[in-house]
């Protein structure tokens, strides 16, 4: 099913499922960093592949991206993006470092990948439970660069089967202490074939 054919009810259902999944992910993140993590209601956007970098705040914005493939009964990709400053705040909370430069150490990379892994696993297990499907995240990969460059791998995967991407986007925000606000974006990019599976199951849930 092409993304464009999704109706409002289907999109809303997808949003609701994502809300639950993100809720689990936010709980995991909050326990990990010992801070309250606030979550914005996810937005589900269907957009042309070429517009995805704009949705991320522009192709040139420096970001830390953590990507994973979704394996199991449904396929797709997950991409988590943290603006560089937020990634550093996250690392301060996790590792207790202060005054970091722009570059990431090996320890930083490993800690951020672990965060990615925990968030994705929490999200996928919630989604999988609802849909009665097994969803497994692959080993996380990390890149620290311009948003456009970080995200184009995922877009290349999607572009094999179409010109549209579905993005489920959520912002995580830490405590409203201006020193430590952590913002992040979470994207679920299902393969079009996988979207069929989701939509059929969503239909059954609505029954």
């Amino acid at each position, binding site marked *: 099913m092409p993304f464009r054919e999704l109706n409002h009810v289907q999109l809303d259902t997808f949003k609701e499922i994502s809300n639950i999944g993100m809720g689990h992910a936010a709980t995991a993140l909050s326990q990990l960093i010992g801070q309250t993590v606030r979550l914005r209601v996810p937005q589900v956007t269907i957009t042309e592949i070429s517009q995805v970098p704009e949705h991320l705040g522009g192709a*040139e914005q420096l970001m830390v991206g953590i990507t994973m493939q979704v394996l199991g009964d449904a396929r797709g990709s997950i991409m988590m993006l943290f603006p560089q400053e937020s990634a550093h705040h996250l690392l301060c909370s996790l590792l207790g470092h202060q005054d970091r430069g722009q570059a990431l150490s090996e320890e930083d990379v490993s800690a951020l990948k672990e965060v990615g892994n925990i968030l994705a696993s929490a999200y996928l297990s919630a989604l999988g439970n609802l849909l009665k499907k097994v969803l497994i995240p692959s080993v996380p*990969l990390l*890149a620290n660069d311009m948003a456009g*460059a970080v995200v*184009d791998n995922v877009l290349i995967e999607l572009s094999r089967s179409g010109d549209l991407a579905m993005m489920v986007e959520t912002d995580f925000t830490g405590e409203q202490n201006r020193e430590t606000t952590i913002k992040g974006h979470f994207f679920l990019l299902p393969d079009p074939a996988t979207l069929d599976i989701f939509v059929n199951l969503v239909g059954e849930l609505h029954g």
Partner: protein
Amino acid sequence: MDNRVSIAQTRIGRAPAVLRACGLGSCIAVGLYDPQNHIGGLGHMLLPSNPEGSPYGMEGKYVDIGISRMVDELVRGGARRDDLVAKIVGGANMFETTYQTLINSIGARNARSARETLARLAIPLVGEEVGGNRGRNVEFDLATGKMLVYCARDDERISL
């Protein structure tokens, strides 16, 4: 005028325009230029080639189709086919991984497809800044044919 070439787009122009492609990772930017007539084009492509051989989707999605189409448009726009030269930028492997060899990475395949397509069309490749694992921005100055590559992560500028 917005001279930004976004993903899966190709765009042609003439001096004094400067064409820009931002945030290239595994994607590849191919610039074609006629130095006599100061007319050129820039494409921001995603995939090496269309596996089915049937053109569909966005014009600049595929390296091979995108390049051929730019050549046609440039010739229609007054460029001399035999004077065209090419420069390529991008084709990086942003996510280093142990189970994906460099040869098979999509960035490397995009770069190879660009070289092969240019060779087939007998367009000389006169400059390149490809591979590695860093993102790149490109500015293609159609007054001079110079390409300025900027890597935000290393804060490095390279002139092609």
